[in-house]
């Protein structure tokens, strides 16, 4: 098993642009969560999806959105990028709610 895979690994965007980050969970994992991590901080929760339905949403603006597909993969979309959106975006999956999460290696987003 390849574990949780995220793409791309790095990208650079300009302020005002839109970005889509992708995540493939471990086979059999139906829950996917997204986190934003800035240097020196712990992961900040953005979204959780379970069986394609949103189960939780963190304190992020509406510019952030996500969805989960029938194969349980997920996308995180961020519109109207700001410099402050520069961070490591982590995806994590689990078999079910309450189980521990397996994390991907993240997507490093730089907004210039």
């Amino acid at each position, binding site marked *: 098993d390849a574990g949780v895979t995220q793409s791309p690994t790095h990208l650079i965007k300009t302020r005002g642009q839109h970005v889509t980050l992708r995540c493939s969970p471990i086979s059999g994992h139906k829950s996917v969560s997204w986190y934003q991590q800035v240097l020196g901080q*712990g992961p900040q929760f953005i979204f*959780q999806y379970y069986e394609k339905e949103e189960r939780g949403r963190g304190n992020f603006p509406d510019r952030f959105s996500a969805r989960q597909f029938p194969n349980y993969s997920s996308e995180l979309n961020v519109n109207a990028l700001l410099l402050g959106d520069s961070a490591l975006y982590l995806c994590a999956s689990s078999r079910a709610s*309450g189980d521990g999460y397996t994390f991907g290696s993240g997507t490093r987003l730089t907004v210039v």
Partner: protein
Amino acid sequence: AQRVTQPEKLLSVFKGAPVELKCNYSYSGSPELFWYVQYSRQRLQLLLRHISRESIKGFTADLNKGETSFHLKKPFAQEEDSAMYYCALGDQFYFGTGTSLTVIP
């Protein structure tokens, strides 16, 4: 407010010494608590969760509801324990800011 506090950003101990990484939480309801570890250049990985009351790599953590704490302990630190440790609360909705543990040979 639901919150996880890890009061120590940095912690250094000598090899063979006991280590305790502190985690305090604020949560309305019955908490689910986890410890995650990130070794240098590796992914964040689950270390243990309170519900399973397990010992992983010699680490244990006990949920103390009276003190709202979930401290991570190991009786004898090893050099390979040097890493970043995060406490997480809820269905992993809340993470602490992390403690960087260095075990001195």
